[in-house]
């Protein structure tokens, strides 16, 4: 996430990741204030076994795009409503990536935070059976409600 103030929304992502049996790590880093840390994180993530990145950021929300620029892992962006523009700025910044460097842009705020985890589970479920089963079980529950 771009700032520790994003934590309340990101907590929704983490709860779903746990439900989906996805191992995760959480870091605070800013594409503008700590760009070297973002570069190091993105370029070494694959070697540490990370398979999907989720970036939550508000305002100019460059985090997802910069992570995507430095690696070829799938990046999921959660635009946050943290400025006077209530997330419109972050939504456009996260979604309007140039061709070839995609960021999968979720909805603004808590819905996006939860869907980021579900989308990550869909990607990881292609390779990890336990995650696929957890996600399919969740979808079955939705249908039965």
């Amino acid at each position, binding site marked *: 996430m771009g700032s520790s103030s994003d934590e309340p929304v990101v907590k929704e992502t983490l709860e779903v990741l746990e439900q989906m049996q996805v191992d995760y790590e959480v870091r605070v880093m800013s594409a503008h204030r*700590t760009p*070297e840390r973002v570069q190091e*994180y993105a*370029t*070494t993530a694959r*070697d540490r*076994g990370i398979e999907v990145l989720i970036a939550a950021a508000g305002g100019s929300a460059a985090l997802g795009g910069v992570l995507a620029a430095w690696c070829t892992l799938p990046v999921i962006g959660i635009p946050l409503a943290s400025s006077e523009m209530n997330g419109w700025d972050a939504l456009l910044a996260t979604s309007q990536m140039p061709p070839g460097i995609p960021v999968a842009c979720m909805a603004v705020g808590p819905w996006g935070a939860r869907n980021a985890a579900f989308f990550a589970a869909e990607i990881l479920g292609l390779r990890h059976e336990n995650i696929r089963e957890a996600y399919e079980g969740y979808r079955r529950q939705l249908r039965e409600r």
Partner: protein
Amino acid sequence: MVPAILTDFDDTAAVQNVAEMLLHKFGDGTWQDVRERFRAGELTLKDYQEITFNNIQADRDTMRAYVQDNANLRPRFAELWEYCQEINSPMAVVSLGLDFYIQALLEKEGAPDVPVYCVKTRFTPEGINYYYHYAYPGQPERGNSKGLVVERYRQLGYHVIYVGDGRSDFEGAERADTVFAHSFLAEECRRQQVPFRPFTDFGDILETTKELLGLTGT
């Protein structure tokens, strides 16, 4: 010049060899024979580790709790990590060991966010699955490569400080800019004329980091 500190885990970041500590406590009667086959060169470290841990009956949480009750990080590890955070300098654990026990000890010692390069595991009803994410290119049977991680940080332009003790650390040490070594690694560095510094705790590495940054008079 920005330093990046990469440290081995068993017998280096950790005071003990945590993997062997777990095998002593939870391993079945065959693990020491398997270790002898590894030491004799009949098995790779990857095979030795997988065979011995697959024979353990204890679950992940039991082993994590045992590590947290019985193992320790070498003094001043957490202080070095905090300093690296302050100066925006990378620090990571580079180990051929297993994620669950490394993470358990880092959490206990107040450094849960230290990046870790290691063997990722998943405990399933059928046994443990192992994932090697920085394996030797074209040689997956050898498991992970510490040298590969060192090269990655050097390519990013960092001055790599490598800290280690064992046989598997040499490929990291010979690629690093500054080496801290003890035990086998120190002997091997001496034998192969790779310059190194001895260390007792992470305060030694902290001082060198400050030297590199020009923050001390030496």
